[in-house]
């Protein structure tokens, strides 16, 4: 193992895939000369040239479309949106084009396109640069949706995304980029659709996404001390969703808390709960609960922002509420 940042882990995944396959290219705003707004592609332009690492104009919808055109004709592009909020600008190419073109063509074409973007609050970036919009993309058939937790997860899952022959939405958490993590030294990948149990327990299951996995684990460790044994599942991919791991865990614990940083209302947690309901209904000792971002735009002031997004303390509190 070696210790590197989450941003470096992403950069390594890109580097390894670009070295392996010259059809892998990276497009996006400021990905080239400065190596990305969050430093996730530092050095790649020097290494692979300006045509494989392209600084684009501010034209999100069209450069996602360019990614599709490239994917259609044999490349494996990785397109970076500087913030997940800009999905709103590129949603036509993401949801009406990338997601549907294979199906509409009756399976004639494939769209091996990865679209990376940072999600999450916590940096006082305010309402237009802090959203976690996984619910939008998870809803659209034809897109795979990945939310890595740690640096090691990000690296292994990104390599799988790039190798996938389908459009993959890859959502990185912006509060993680500068954090250091242990990452395997040798090459590895992490398959889609296999959730990961990061902390075992018998009293309650937490199914979490992105960096709330890490916070859930922190809460679980705290709760351990009080004798409350929480099982924490890193969902890793929303599409495909590993229902089996959640179901098995809930059958054991009888309680489920779903934790995700998207807006709570009409977010992903309701779906996750309902999609396993039939399997766990008669095992449940308590209603399924969830934590999400309060349904208001993300406020700028830290005095307000932290009150609306989930954190370790809120997870801890919610578990206590359910268990006891």
């Amino acid at each position, binding site marked *: 193992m070696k210790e590197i940042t989450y941003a470096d882990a992403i950069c390594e995944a890109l580097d390894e895939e670009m070295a392996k396959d010259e059809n892998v*290219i990276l497009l996006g705003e400021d990905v080239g000369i400065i190596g990305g707004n969050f430093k996730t592609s530092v050095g790649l332009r020097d290494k692979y040239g300006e*045509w*494989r690492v392209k600084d*684009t*104009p501010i*034209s999100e*919808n*069209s*450069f*996602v*479309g*360019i*990614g*599709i*055109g*490239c*994917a*259609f*004709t*044999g*490349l494996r592009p990785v397109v970076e949106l500087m913030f997940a909020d800009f999905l709103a600008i590129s949603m*036509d*190419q993401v949801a*009406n*084009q990338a997601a549907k*073109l*294979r*199906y*509409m*063509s*009756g*399976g*004639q*074409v*494939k769209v*091996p396109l990865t679209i990376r973007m940072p999600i999450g609050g916590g940096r006082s970036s305010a309402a237009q640069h802090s959203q976690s919009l996984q619910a939008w993309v998870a809803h659209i*058939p*034809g897109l*795979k949706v990945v939310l890595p937790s740690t640096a090691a997860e990000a690296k292994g899952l990104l390599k799988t995304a790039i190798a996938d*022959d*389908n459009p993959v939405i890859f959502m990185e958490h912006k509060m993680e980029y500068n954090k250091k993590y242990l990452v395997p030294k040798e090459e590895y990948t992490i398959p889609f659709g296999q959730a990961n149990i990061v902390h075992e327990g018998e009293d309650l299951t937490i199914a979490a996404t992105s960096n709330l996995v890490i916070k859930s684990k922190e809460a679980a460790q705290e709760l351990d001390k009080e004798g409350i044994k929480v099982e924490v599942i890193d969902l890793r991919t929303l599409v495909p969703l590993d229902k089996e791991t959640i179901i098995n865990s809930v059958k054991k614990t009888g309680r489920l808390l779903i934790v995700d940083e998207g807006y709570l209302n009409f977010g992903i947690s309701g779906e996750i709960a309902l999609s396993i309901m039939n399997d766990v209904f008669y095992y449940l000792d308590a209603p399924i609960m969830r934590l999400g971002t309060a349904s208001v735009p993300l406020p700028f002031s830290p005095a307000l922002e932290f009150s609306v997004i989930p954190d370790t303390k809120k997870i801890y509190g919610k578990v206590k509420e359910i268990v006891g």
Partner: protein
Amino acid sequence: MTKSEMLRMYEQMLRIREFENQVFELYKQGLMPGLAHLYIGEEAVAVGACAALNENDYIVSTHRGHGHLIARGAETKPMMAEILGKKTGYCKGKGGSMHIVAYDKGILGANGIVGAGIPIATGAGYKSKLKGTKQVTLSFFGDAACNQGTFHESLNMAAVWKLPVVYIIENNLYGISVNINRVTAVEDLSVRAKGYGMPGVTIDGNNVLQVYETVRKAVTRARKDEGPTLIECKTYRWKGHHVGDPATEYRSRDEENEWKAKCPIKTFESYLLKNSIAEEDELEEIKNSIINEIQKAVQFAKESPYPEPEEAFEDLFA
């Protein structure tokens, strides 16, 4: 251009015209699910443009795509079957009129979202540029599509990166019911090319030879890595916006007749005869064979089976 090349263009225009006539018939007979946007009157654009391509080049089409597809060599049987929602269609019935893809012909797809094909075409150009394959992509779209953000964004990128893409505006004066003059203050849409730093030209879209010559030059330019071109073809759609639109409220019969008098097929026919490139009976023979072919396509489509309901769940992921 050789005689056989010219006759091929003539044949292709007729093929489109007859195909569309029969699509309209199928609609009127209640045999067509949904709607279709007919290309009648605009045949010279698709045919002249596609005649300028090599075999491994690409095209990207629009909601009004039948003409582009035929001009590029798509087969009429699986096209017609697709339009009727049959299993034997290009897309196994999943796409329909607006979404036909014929990947083996370099046809990257029609598209139901106005303007959405432009970045995709630009992406195909990016790939050719990066790989040095010398493939050129034609991006077709309408006058109304020129007011979508994707037009602007894509042409800007193509120009600054000198991508091998030729952008072809089919200015048929209308976006559904809206005359281009009501939503755009400029007379010639090709002036927009200046804003991106690429050449732009406006031509008679009903003159197949002029379209061919202009696109050929642009394609050569693109293939030599000199960058994209914007070509505006002035033309007219003879029918309503789609098969269900009588086009009565927003334009005059006089205007329609004026344009019908400039029929691209008739014009070319006269040219061929006047210049003794072809004889009447040669052309007649082509006509008959086309009528016959399209009849067979209709029959094939009608007789083909519908997909099974379970097939709806296939082809989502590769």
